[in-house]
């Protein structure tokens, strides 16, 4: 990260300052502050219900904070809808990926923003450009799309995830929010995605990487924030922490210990039977 030289002194690209979000009587987020710097991967960790999704939905314009504020490049902003957030260059890749499995890779990549060429009174889809661009964009990120005409349904999970990320980057994302991109992937495919995330960082994009998995966070993260029950449990820079710390921070040593005892008990019982 040091090659970017943005670690210290640079302003955060986007930040949440003391935000609180309520759903009825449930306090989903309580006085949470969170910064994202350009050219860095900020990992957001936490168990289910910790408030990860709520926090990113504040950034992507799905929700508005009840208290506190969101700042973009130092200026307070209010996103009334996902469209507002997108206009600022905040792209969110949700787990459903917004891909159409029965359509080809290049059709998916440009779906909704098709390049066109004039053809007399008509306009036609500039297919050559689309295919070429997909090959190039995926190639730049280190993924070989063998045939841009193949159906997305025939791609592996990791490749699909990468395609969705590449699309967001190509269409000018400054902040890229990845919602558990490795959640349903195997080891090898997670590797594909993590490499992709590392490539995206080289382009000065601020990346928010949400995950359950401390080892995935450890591989690509520059900053780590752990949320617990709607509060920030802690934020560490890479050099201040280790994988073991992250695992411990996420689950708590005591909880892990008690889990271990419980499993031992179950194992013993089944052996007795």
């Amino acid at each position, binding site marked *: 990260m040091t090659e970017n030289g943005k670690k210290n002194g640079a302003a955060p690209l986007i930040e949440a300052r003391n935000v609180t979000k309520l759903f009825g009587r449930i306090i989903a987020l309580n006085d949470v502050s969170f910064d994202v710097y350009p050219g860095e991967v900020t990992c957001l960790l936490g168990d289910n219900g910790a408030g990860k999704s709520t926090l990113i939905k504040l950034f992507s314009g799905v929700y508005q904070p009840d208290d506190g504020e969101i700042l973009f490049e130092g200026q307070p902003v209010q996103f009334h809808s996902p469209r507002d957030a997108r206009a600022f260059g905040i792209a969110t890749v*949700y787990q*459903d*990926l*917004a*891909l*159409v*499995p*029965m*359509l080809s890779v290049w*059709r998916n990549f*440009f*779906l*909704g*923003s*098709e390049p*066109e060429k004039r053809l007399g009174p*008509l*306009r*036609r*889809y500039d*297919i050559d450009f689309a295919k070429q661009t997909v090959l190039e964009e995926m190639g730049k990120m280190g993924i*070989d799309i*063998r*045939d841009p005409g*193949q159906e997305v*349904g*025939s*791609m*592996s999970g990791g*490749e699909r995830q990468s395609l969705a990320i590449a699309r967001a980057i190509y269409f000018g994302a400054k902040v890229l929010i990845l919602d558990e991109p490795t959640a349903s992937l195997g080891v090898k495919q997670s590797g594909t995605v993590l490499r992709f995330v590392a490539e995206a960082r080289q382009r000065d994009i601020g990346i928010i990487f949400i995950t359950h998995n401390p080892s995935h966070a450890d591989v690509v993260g520059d900053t780590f924030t752990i949320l617990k029950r709607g509060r920030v449990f802690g934020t560490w820079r890479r050099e201040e922490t280790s994988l073991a710390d992250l695992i411990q921070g996420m689950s708590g040593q005591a909880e892990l210990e008690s889990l271990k005892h419980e499993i031992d008990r179950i194992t013993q019982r089944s052996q007795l039977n």
Partner: protein
Amino acid sequence: MAQMTTNTKDERLVRVGLLRRIFQVPEMGAVVGLIGVVIIFMLSPARENLFLKVPIPAIGRVLDNSADIGVMAVAISMLMIAGEFDLSIGFMTGSTGMIVGILSAVYGWPLAISMPLALIFALSVGFFNGIMRIRTGLPSFVITLGTMFVLRSANFAVTRSVTGNIRVPYIDRVPGYDLMNAIFSYRLSIGGAQFYITLIWWFAFTAFFTWFMLRTRWGSWIFASGGEPAAAKSVGVPVERVKVALFMFVHACAWISGMAVIFRLRSATASQGEFLQFTVLVAAVTGGNRMTGGYGSVIGASLGALIFGLTKTGIVAAFWDSDWFFAFLGVMLLLAIVLNLILRTQAEYIGTTAMGEEETDEEWLEKTPVLQGQDDGKGNPEND
């Protein structure tokens, strides 16, 4: 075949056998069906063998019968690809015909007014169906079933109250008939075969909308709207606008079809269009269009229309009892659905091969259970 595919230029391509690539084409089922129907009628012991004894006039008859539903088959296949269907288009051909018939032949309005009015009526009903579909979220079958019954009743009730009959005759006495007849149902003669100009309309529609579906952004939007509407919406495809526009489009095509019928028959009949929505459905499904949307082809629908034309002409020519026509159609529909399902399942096995690896047709056939038949009992669970 394995050798052929090993020599592809790009070494990164997922190499698949030629056979499988053919299987992946959506029109495949229709091609097989077309060959099947031709063989059936060639083998049928008829005195007037359709294709051997009277080929040229027979071709004219086959193509006319196909063209009658061709334009609408093209339109409905696009609506189906977008994941919707419309049952009211059949009676809409009757309604538009009645509007022109009553306004012009009975009340003497010029065609220049009655025909655009009929078109506006068709577009409005299409708009209504589309908006209802979007706003209520109910299946389009339910909504358009309602519209269908209303149109059916209105066609009979209005015609009877105006003319005392269910027919409006003498459309050929309306000023401007000759010009409109030339546009919608001119009789052409090419090399001994006679055609209605509807054939040209059908071919032009097939060609243009094939291009439209594959080479414009609207084509992509239509496929995406039927395939994964939520995903399409989230990347900015105006899914609702696409669907409403297509509902209006199929009704505009019903108007074209309705005009062709009244100018050809020189009269309008209230019962016009009964079953038409189903025959175009058969044509579209035979042509590989999925009822669930997201997949299909305009050319496929046109091939389906051709199979329909062949069947209709063939049954009469083979002196079969024409009462059995609909049974034939029904069997054809079911066969087509099963065939397309098998073909598609086979084609989708592409996903089970690791990327970058080569899989020959032989290996693929070995892996896929459907073509092998179900008798080995063990199945191939490792491929699932």
